[in-house]
């Protein structure tokens, strides 16, 4: 009952998180990767530690526009430019190789049209997932209509999931601003997975509420039932998240560069998702029920 009783504290905490995340998103904005903006990325591995400035000068002397050259690891550099044709790509490559022995290990060039499309697709996918989940929960809980309509279960699950994706987005806005971390299609995938996971977690608690309502909903008031359900599922919620977090930590530390930020976004999302299923979604149901009761009286 502790959790339900002190719900105002959790609401305040969640509000703080959401406001801070929104603030950082509006202040810094998300740094979009070339997936979304179009552009090119060239990674070259040298035999010895390269002179990054020299590479930049060589490339910019081609007058193909400005280039951002960053070291990556010990012997690699990453060159970011506007999208390049194959001919321009070869010029940039030979310019980068003119300062020392090395070889190209990765080259991406994405036209701006494709970038725009991907962005649109990602946003559509997000909206679609949210809509489908509300519908699904409303359907799965259709038999539970007292004292709170099944539709509100879906709505609260969505409130929780929006809360859960806001935090990773906020953190990545900060990371983007200070460390140049980019948001790409993988990041969107991570957010979508967090959506799925968040709902997964919330449903497990709601499911217990549904069961307890059926068994002794007449004897106890709604607040007690919800409180008991949260208590019954809390160790499962924490243990499950712990295993997922263990796996994600393995990916984060050992999975290599390409999935590093992907797993970080998931880590943040899973942690906050567990928090919200316990401390936000279910207490909100109680608040909602109290509001309705207050009105009808």
């Amino acid at each position, binding site marked *: 009952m502790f959790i339900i009783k002190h719900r105002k504290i959790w609401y305040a905490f969640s509000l703080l998180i959401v406001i801070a995340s929104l603030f950082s998103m509006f202040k810094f904005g998300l740094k979009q990767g070339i997936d979304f903006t179009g552009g090119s990325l060239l*990674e070259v591995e040298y035999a010895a530690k390269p002179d990054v400035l020299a590479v930049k000068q060589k490339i910019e002397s081609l007058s193909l526009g400005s280039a951002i050259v960053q070291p990556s690891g010990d012997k690699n550099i990453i060159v970011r430019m506007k*999208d390049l*044709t*194959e001919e321009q*790509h*070869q010029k940039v490559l030979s310019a980068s190789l003119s300062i020392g022995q090395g070889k*190209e*290990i*990765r*080259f*991406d*060039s994405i*036209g701006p*049209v*494709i970038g725009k*499309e*991907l962005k*649109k*697709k990602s946003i*559509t*996918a997000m909206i*679609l*997932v949210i809509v*489908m*989940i509300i519908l*699904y929960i409303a359907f*799965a809980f259709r038999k539970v209509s007292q004292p709170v309509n099944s539709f509100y279960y879906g709505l609260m699950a969505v409130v929780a999931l929006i809360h859960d994706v806001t935090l990773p987005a906020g953190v990545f806005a900060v990371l983007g601003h200070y460390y140049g971390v980019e948001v790409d*299609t*993988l990041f*969107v*995938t991570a957010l*979508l*997975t967090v959506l*799925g*996971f968040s*709902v*997964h*977690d919330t*449903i*497990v608690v709601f*499911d217990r509420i549904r*069961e307890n309502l059926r068994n002794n909903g007449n004897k106890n008031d709604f607040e007690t039932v919800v409180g008991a359900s949260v208590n019954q599922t809390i*160790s*499962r919620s924490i*243990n*499950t998240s*712990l*295993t*997922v977090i*263990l*796996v*994600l930590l*393995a*990916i984060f*530390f*050992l*999975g*290599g560069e*390409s*999935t590093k930020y992907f797993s970080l976004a998931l880590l943040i999302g899973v942690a906050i998702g567990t928090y919200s299923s316990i401390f936000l979604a279910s207490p909100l149901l109680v608040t909602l029920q109290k509001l309705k009761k207050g009105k009808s009286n």
Partner: protein
Amino acid sequence: MSAKYRFISFLLILAGLGIAYFDAVNFLKPESFLYSRILSVPFKLGLDLQGGVHLTYKADLSAIKPVEAGNAMEGLRDVIERRVNAFGVGEPLVQVEKSAGGDQRLIVELPGVTNVNEAIKMIGETPFLEFKTENPAADKLTEEEKKDSSKVFVSSDLTGRYLKKAILDFDQTTFEPIISLEFNDEGGKLFAKMTKENVGKSIAIFLDGAPISVPNVREEITGGKAQITGQFTPQEAKLLVQRLNSGALPVPVSLISQQSVGPTLGEKFLAKGVMAGIYGMILVSLFLILWYRLPGLAAVLALGLYTIIILALFKLIPVTLTAAGIAGFILSVGMAVDANILIFERMKEELKKGKNLQSAVSEGFSRAWLSIRDSNISSLITAGILFWMGTSMIKGFALTLGVGILISMFSAITVSRTFLLAIGLKGESKISRFLFGSGIR
């Protein structure tokens, strides 16, 4: 009761060993006595793991009627597919894709190709073969103009369009390469007419605007066949034959995006992904056994079986494994563990209520099922939307996650349950209570 479950468990473990062999067989050395060529199915690795190129072309259909666009794209795909095949890569993928904005695109994936520049050239080059005759007004040309072969010869109707096929031959005596051209019926007639009108004169064969061979016509040639003997190296001749056979592009294309990964980078990704997977599994197993004891051990066995089945499915479907795909798989392991944890927590509650072990196990399973079903369906919805909407990278993630969730539901409900019932501790002794307990108490 438990005798029956013990037997089923035994069969499950046996089947697991069999499938594990199937998973691993292509990593064995061929000379090993365990090796089997028929069973050796490799994992299908995505471009990011084995290295390769992903190219997106935009087709310019402005000169083509909208109703013919589909046909033109198919023709384009066929031509490019032939060219790509000539390049000799493992399993190239060439597919037409219609963008949201209505653009027609062609996706070309060349696994294992490292020389991107050459590949792009190869795809983009349209061999333009022309037969030209002597310019009747050649006498009036200035000395300067006579050096320009495009002025000395004039175009005829006969072009590469009428080519049926090209074959590489070698001269019997000089061993120089010869390219034999075979025209289709219409081309054969044009060629016959052309040779008839030009007996004693020369005909020039132009490739991509430059003369490659200027033979003299001795007589009319009616068979619809011609030969080019030029100063080719065998390598050049071979390439030319390939290009001629693959034909001309029906519509112009332009490259709008390319992504390439070197093979060393791919190998690194793969090794790291596998490493992360192994350590992730070990951590999860330790946690399960330490916290949930005996049921935890059953869950670890079930997870092992789950992993083995998933890997075999990845080979059989086949699922193209990418870095994101491996992440999706590892995440599905997390979901599989969740199903087990839900069950164990339920079991513990039933035990607390004073039920005996046997009924606590079956109650725990049946009560947890609703939560497992509902929560996994929501994850499947997400995976489905991702698969439907996503780019190839996201698709890989969604597919492994989706397949993983489906199999994990099976493994938690049937496999862990069978293992637990097989252990079948009936006793209400302190030890069995301890073994089925959890946490630090």
